[in-house]
């Protein structure tokens, strides 16, 4: 897991003050993130209409391992619930949360805008439109063996971000974050309008489209996990590899160019990677809001602003946050489920206001 960041030891010969000033991933925060994620996943697996004890969960988990497998007998019904419903759902939640939080941090770094997230730049609206088109006009079809829904989501998200990018550049230039946010809002509004029109005019699929837009982690088996995993692995890996360069971008395009770094290239690659992953998870899990804002900003407030810290910790805490939000979504109105996007927005909206106030709109 070298990609998660070097838990550096002091270099010999360099003064202590210098090393203190260099950003590094604090190992205790990384360990805390790992533990919180593990605990939230265990909690997520335990919660459900059928009571399953922690002991049973552990037995089910070790059962496939040859040496441990024979030690205890496991109820096949409970094993089936865990393997085909709860565990894939929790794993999917962790993947979606990790991707959205990482993509949010990446967008903020690439655009040097603390208020940027996939949703504000129109990627989610684009994915919504793409997936709605796919669900409505090509239900259940696949292209080269891949389900067409995430593909359509990806295309929609890429078109939205590219549109916001181009519009922001033509209006005020990419250094002006206000122009970028307004461009994202305009593109999102446009895409949402088309999406709503299609949804209203093709009422056969309205339930499926609605359920998908509101955000949910309902999954039977591992299909959803396997569908998003390649996109997320590539997206997250590319973003993690750009941590140093995202820090460098923070000094501005001109200055970073004078250091021999192509700001345009870094921004393009990071945006493509973040959009790829976001599109895939939005297509599977719907429009889950605010994860990309709340998690990176919380990490910034608590640990530090360097992307070498923000990105790996956003990945861990984003995964944990979404698993907990999904658990809450299942518990709040049990046996019914509250859409997970509602839970993240209830926590996220007030937080978003605090972030805007604390930045004193300087970024605008």
């Amino acid at each position, binding site marked *: 897991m070298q990609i998660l960041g070097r838990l550096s030891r002091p*270099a010999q010969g360099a003064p202590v003050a*210098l090393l203190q*000033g*260099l950003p590094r991933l604090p190992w205790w925060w990384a360990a805390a993130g790992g533990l919180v994620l593990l605990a939230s996943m265990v909690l997520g697996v335990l919660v459900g209409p059928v009571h399953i004890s922690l002991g049973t969960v552990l037995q089910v988990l070790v059962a496939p391992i040859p040496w441990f497998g024979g030690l205890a007998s496991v109820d096949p019904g409970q094993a089936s619930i865990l393997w085909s419903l709860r565990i894939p759902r929790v794993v999917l939640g962790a993947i979606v949360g990790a991707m959205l939080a990482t993509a949010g941090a990446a967008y903020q770094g690439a655009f040097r805008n603390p208020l940027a997230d996939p949703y504000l730049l129109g990627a989610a609206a684009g994915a919504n439109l793409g997936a709605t088109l796919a669900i409505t006009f090509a239900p259940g079809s696949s292209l080269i063996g891949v389900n067409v829904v995430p593909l359509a989501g990806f295309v929609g998200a890429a078109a939205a971000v590219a549109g916001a990018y181009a519009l922001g550049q033509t209006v005020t230039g990419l250094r002006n974050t206000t122009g970028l946010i307004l461009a994202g809002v305009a593109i999102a509004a446009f895409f949402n309008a088309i999406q709503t029109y299609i949804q209203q005019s093709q009422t056969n699929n309205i339930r499926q489209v609605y359920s998908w837009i509101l955000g949910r982690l309902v999954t039977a088996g591992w299909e959803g996990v396997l569908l998003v995993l390649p996109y997320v692995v590539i997206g997250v890996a590319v973003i993690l590899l750009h941590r140093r360069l995202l820090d460098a971008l923070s000094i501005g395009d001109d200055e970073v160019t004078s250091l021999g770094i192509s700001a345009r290239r870094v921004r393009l690659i990071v945006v493509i990677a973040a959009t790829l992953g976001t599109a895939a998870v939005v297509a599977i899990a719907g429009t889950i809001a605010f994860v990309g804002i709340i998690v990176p900003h919380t990490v910034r407030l608590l640990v*530090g*602003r360097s992307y070498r810290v923000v990105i790996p910790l956003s990945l861990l805490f984003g995964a944990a946050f979404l698993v907990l939000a999904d658990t809450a979504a299942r518990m709040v109105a049990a046996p019914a489920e509250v859409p997970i996007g509602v839970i993240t927005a209830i926590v996220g909206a007030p937080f978003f206001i605090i972030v805007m106030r604390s930045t004193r709109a300087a970024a605008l």
Partner: protein
Amino acid sequence: MNDVVLRGVRIAYESEVVVSELDLGISSGEWLALIGPNGAGKTTILRAIARLVAYQGEIQVGGQAVAEMSGRELARRVAMVMQEPHMPEGMSVSQYVMLGRSPHLAYFGKEGHRDQRVVADILERLSLGRMAARALDHLSGGERQRAAIARALAQQAPVLLVDEPTSSLDVGRQQDVLELIDSLRAEQGLTVIAAMHDLTLAGQYADRVALLVAGKLVAAGTPAEVLTEPAIADHYRAQVRVLQMNGSGRAVIPIRGHDAAQAKNRLP
């Protein structure tokens, strides 16, 4: 091999020509001050050498055309200190200065022990060692200027471009910064090209001065040759007295209109 040559350089923003037909040569280890009234194109010329603006004509560094170099290669040869460098809130001095090592790292590369040693040496040299872990937004104006110079020095480039190095500094800090650049030039043989609005400081620190007016080079030579009362009256529309300092050094002192009339009467 650190000389900089500009031949027939023309720079335009859309249809507005900012610099026209500029020919200028700066020898290795020389300090050239670009002077001129506001809007003369001083900053634009520095930005063209650093390839931050498009230009026509030819700019060479060490005998090689800037246009043919990769971004990293250029950044290993030319470092630039901006007039108002952007200093991200919360970034530490050492992280900021470490960014100067970027031209020496691969795209996905990481800073190693050698980079840490280079940065540590520069921080010590610029008296920033004790504040390496401090956030940039907690620095004074003089310390910020030193941090910006430190970042440029971390590039270990033989050519240093400096845009208005003393703006917004008090007289003591102005002297500190220019003495620092001068001593680094002496130690490391840096070629320094600085846009300077303070003619006295330009006249004392630069080996040569290039006077630009509306994007055209009107005079180039030693401070003694360029910084004359008639030239400054013509091009800056300012009444000044020019005093000789330390051989070829010059101090330019603005004088009030009334005194200017009297001074003019006294001239032979």
